[in-house]
C-alpha cells in the first residue's frame, strides 16, 4: 500500500516524469534493434520530456530531500529539455545520412540512442538534484555517457579524443567531489549529520554560520573541478577534441547543455559563498579564469583549420565571457550572464546543426575545403551565416545583447577589466568573420563525388534544417524583443545569485 502511495505521489510530481522519461527510454532504446524507429522514439521521448518541463511553470512541486525546483534551475531545465528535443530532431536526420554513408553499424546506433537519452537524464538530474552528492553523481555519469558517444566512430582520432576527455574530466570530477566533501564538512557542525547537510534548499538558509575557511578551500577545488567540465582555460584541453571527433549532434549537446550544467553546479556553490558573506570573494578567481579562456580561445580561433574545432574554441570563448559576467556579479552582470548562457546554448547548438550537414555534404571538416555555402546550399548557408554572425556578437541578435550588457556593466563597475574583455571579444569576432567569409561566400568547390547527396531524401533535409532555423529565429527574436515575464524572471534569478 505504501509503495502504491509513493508511486501515486511520484506520478503527481512533474519532476519525476522529467527524469523517468529519459531514463526509461534509455533502457528501451538500448534493446530496440531498428535504428529508424529508435531515432523517432528518441525524438518522441525528448519531446515529451520538454512538454513535461513546461508543466513545471504551471505547477511547481514542493522540494523533496532529493529533488527540487526553484527560480534558478527551472529555466535551465526548460532550456536543457528544449535543446535536447531539437537536437534529437537534428540527430534523426544526421543519423539517417550517416547510415547511408555506412559509417555506423546497427549496434553502434542502438548504443548511440540509448546514450543520448541517458545523457539527457544525467543533465536533468544534475539540474534538479537537491543534494550536492546526487548532483555530483549525475555530472560524473554525464561524463561517462558522453565519453562513450565521443568515441562512437572508433577512429584513431575519436579514441584519442575520448581518452583525453575521459582522463582530464575524471580528474576534474574527482576534485569536484573533494570540494563537495569539504562543503559537507563545513555544513555538518551547523546542520548535523546526514542528508540535510547536503540539501541546497536547507544549506542556503544556514550558510552564514558555516566555517568560511573551509568554504574557501572547497570553492577552489570546486572551481578547478567543475571548471574543467565548463572548459575554462587552462583546463579546457579536452573540449576541442571531444567536440571535433564525436558525432555532430553530440557536439551540439556538449556545447549547448553540458557546459551550462557544469557552470550551474559551480554557481550553486558560489551562492553558498555569497550567502556566507565571510569567505573570500569568488569573483576575482572567476573573472581571471573567464578572461584567460576568452583570450586563449580568441587567439586560437585564428589558427583553426577544422570547422568543428573552430566552433569548439568559440564555446570556450563564450563560457569565458559567461564566467566573467558571473564573477563580476551584481544584478546587471548576472542578468547578462544568464541571458548569455541561454543565447550561447541556442546559437551554438544551432551552429552545430548546420556544421553537421555541411561536413556531411562536403565530406570533410577542413575549413579550406568548405566554400561558397550560400551559393551551393542557400537555405543551409544563410541559416549558418546568421547563426555565426550571432555567435560572433553582431547586433541585432541575442548574443550581442548579452555581450553588450556584460561589457557595459564591466565598464560601470571595473573599467580596467572591461578593456581586456572588449579586446578579447573583438579579436574573436575578427577570427570568426574571416572564417565565415571563406566558408559562406566565394565560389563553391567543384562538385566532388559526394557519397550521399543524391540519395538523401527531401524529408531528412527538411528535418535537418528545421531545428537550425528554429534556433536562429529564437536568437534573432530574443535580440529584438525579450518577453516581459522572461525579463522579470532573469532579474529575479540575478538577484538570487548575489
Amino acid at each position, binding site marked *: 500500500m505504501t509503495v502504491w502511495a509513493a508511486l501515486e505521489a511520484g506520478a503527481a510530481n512533474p519532476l519525476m516524469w522529467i527524469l523517468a522519461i529519459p531514463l526509461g527510454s534509455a533502457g528501451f532504446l538500448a534493446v530496440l534493434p531498428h535504428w529508424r524507429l529508435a531515432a523517432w522514439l528518441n525524438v518522441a521521448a525528448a519531446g515529451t520530456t520538454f512538454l513535461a518541463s513546461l508543466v513545471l511553470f504551471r505547477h511547481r512541486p514542493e522540494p523533496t530531500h532529493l529533488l527540487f525546483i526553484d527560480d534558478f534551475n527551472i529555466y535551465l531545465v526548460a532550456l536543457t529539455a528544449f535543446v535536447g528535443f531539437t537536437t534529437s530532431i537534428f540527430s534523426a536526420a544526421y543519423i539517417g545520412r550517416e547510415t547511408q554513408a555506412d559509417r555506423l553499424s546497427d549496434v553502434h546506433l542502438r548504443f548511440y540512442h540509448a546514450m543520448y537519452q541517458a545523457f539527457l537524464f544525467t543533465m536533468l538530474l544534475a539540474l534538479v538534484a537537491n543534494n550536492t552528492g546526487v548532483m555530483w*553523481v549525475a555530472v*560524473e*555519469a554525464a561524463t561517462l555517457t558522453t565519453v562513450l558517444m565521443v568515441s562512437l566512430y572508433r577512429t584513431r582520432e575519436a579514441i584519442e579524443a575520448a581518452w583525453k576527455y575521459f582522463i582530464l574530466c575524471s*580528474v576534474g570530477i574527482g576534485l569536484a567531489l573533494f570540494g563537495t566533501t569539504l562543503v559537507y564538512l563545513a555544513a555538518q557542525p551547523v546542520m548535523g549529520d546526514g542528508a540535510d547537510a547536503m540539501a541546497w534548499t536547507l544549506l542556503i538558509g544556514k550558510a552564514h554560520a558555516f566555517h568560511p*575557511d573551509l568554504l574557501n578551500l572547497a570553492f577552489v577545488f570546486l572551481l578547478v573541478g567543475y571548471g574543467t567540465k565548463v572548459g575554462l582555460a587552462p583546463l579546457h584541453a579536452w573540449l576541442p577534441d571531444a567536440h571535433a571527433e564525436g558525432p555532430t549532434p553530440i557536439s551540439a549537446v556538449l556545447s549547448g547543455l553540458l557546459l551550462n550544467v557544469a557552470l550551474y553546479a559551480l554557481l550553486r556553490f558560489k551562492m553558498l559563498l555569497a550567502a556566507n558573506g565571510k569567505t573570500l570573494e569568488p569573483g576575482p578567481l572567476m573573472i581571471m579564469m573567464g578572461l584567460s579562456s576568452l583570450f586563449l580561445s580568441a587567439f586560437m580561433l585564428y589558427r583553426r583549420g*577544422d570547422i568543428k574545432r573552430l566552433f569548439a574554441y568559440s564555446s570556450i570563448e563564450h563560457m569565458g565571457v559567461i564566467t566573467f559576467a558571473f564573477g563580476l556579479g551584481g544584478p546587471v552582470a548576472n542578468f547578462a550572464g544568464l541571458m548569455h548562457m541561454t543565447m550561447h546554448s541556442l546559437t551554438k547548438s544551432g551552429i552545430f546543426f548546420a556544421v553537421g550537414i555541411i561536413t556531411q555534404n562536403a565530406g570533410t571538416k577542413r575549413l579550406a575545403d568548405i566554400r561558397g555555402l550560400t551559393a551551393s546550399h542557400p537555405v543551409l548557408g544563410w541559416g549558418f551565416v546568421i547563426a555565426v554572425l550571432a555567435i560572433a556578437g553582431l547586433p541585432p541578435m541575442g548574443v550581442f545583447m548579452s555581450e553588450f550588457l556584460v561589457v557595459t556593466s564591466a565598464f560601470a563597475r571595473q573599467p580596467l577589466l572591461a578593456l581586456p574583455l572588449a579586446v578579447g571579444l573583438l579579436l574573436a569576432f575578427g577570427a570568426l568573420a574571416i572564417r565565415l567569409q571563406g566558408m559562406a561566400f566565394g565560389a563553391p568547390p567543384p562538385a566532388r563525388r559526394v557519397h550521399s547527396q543524391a540519395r538523401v531524401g527531401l524529408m531528412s533535409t527538411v528535418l535537418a534544417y528545421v531545428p537550425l532555423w528554429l534556433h536562429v529565429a529564437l536568437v534573432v527574436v530574443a535580440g529584438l524583443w525579450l518577453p516581459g515575464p522572461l525579463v522579470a524572471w532573469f532579474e529575479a534569478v540575478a538577484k538570487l545569485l548575489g
Partner: protein
Amino acid sequence: MAQQFSYDLAHLIGATVLMAGMGLLYQRRLFAVLNTFAFQAVALAAAAAWQAHVQHAPHLYATAAIALIFKAIAVPLALHWLVERLGIHRTVETALSIGWTMIVGVALVALSIMLVLPVTAKAAALTRESLSIAMSVVLLGMLMMITRRNAVTQVVGFMALENGLILAAVSAKGMPLVVEISIAFSVLVAMTVFGIFFFRIRERFDTLDLNYLETYRGDRQ
C-alpha cells in the same frame, strides 16, 4: 581512552594509505606499481571499515567491501592481465625523475597539512587529520598522473587520487551517499580499464605512451 584509541588507529590507517601513495611514486616496474596500489586499496578498505565501526555507520562496510574486492583484487588483476595480454612495456616511464618526484611529493604533503589543519581548527580532531591525509593522497595521485607517462600508470594514479577522495568521504562524519559515490567511481574506473582493453590503445597507437596522444593537438592537416 577508547576514543583516543579509535582516533590513533584511524590516524595510523590513514597514514598507511598515505605511505602507499608515496610508495607509488618510486616504483620503477609496472607490476610493482600494481602491487603497491593493491596494498593502498587494502589500507583504504581497513580505514573505511574502522570508520564504519567508530561512527556506527554500517553502510560504510559496503564501501570497505567495494575497496577490498574491486580495487584491491579485481582491478590490479585485470591490469596485470592487460599488461601481459597487450604486451605493454613493463618499466615505468617517467616524465620527471624519481628523486624530483619524491621531493615534490613531500612538498605536496606538507602543503596540504599546512593548508588543512588551520582551516579545520574547530572541526573534530578525527576529521582534521584524516582530511589533511586525504588531501595529500589526492595530490600525490595527481602528481603521479602528471609525471608518469604510460596509460596504465596514469590509470593507477587516477585510482590513487580516488582512494584519497573516498578516504575523505568516509572520514566526514555522517556523510550520506558515500556508498553511492564509491560505486559511481568504481564504474568510472572499470570503464578506464575496459577502455584500455576495448580500444586496444596498444594496437591503435602502437604504444600506451600518452605523449603520442599529445602529438594530436587537433588540426593535423
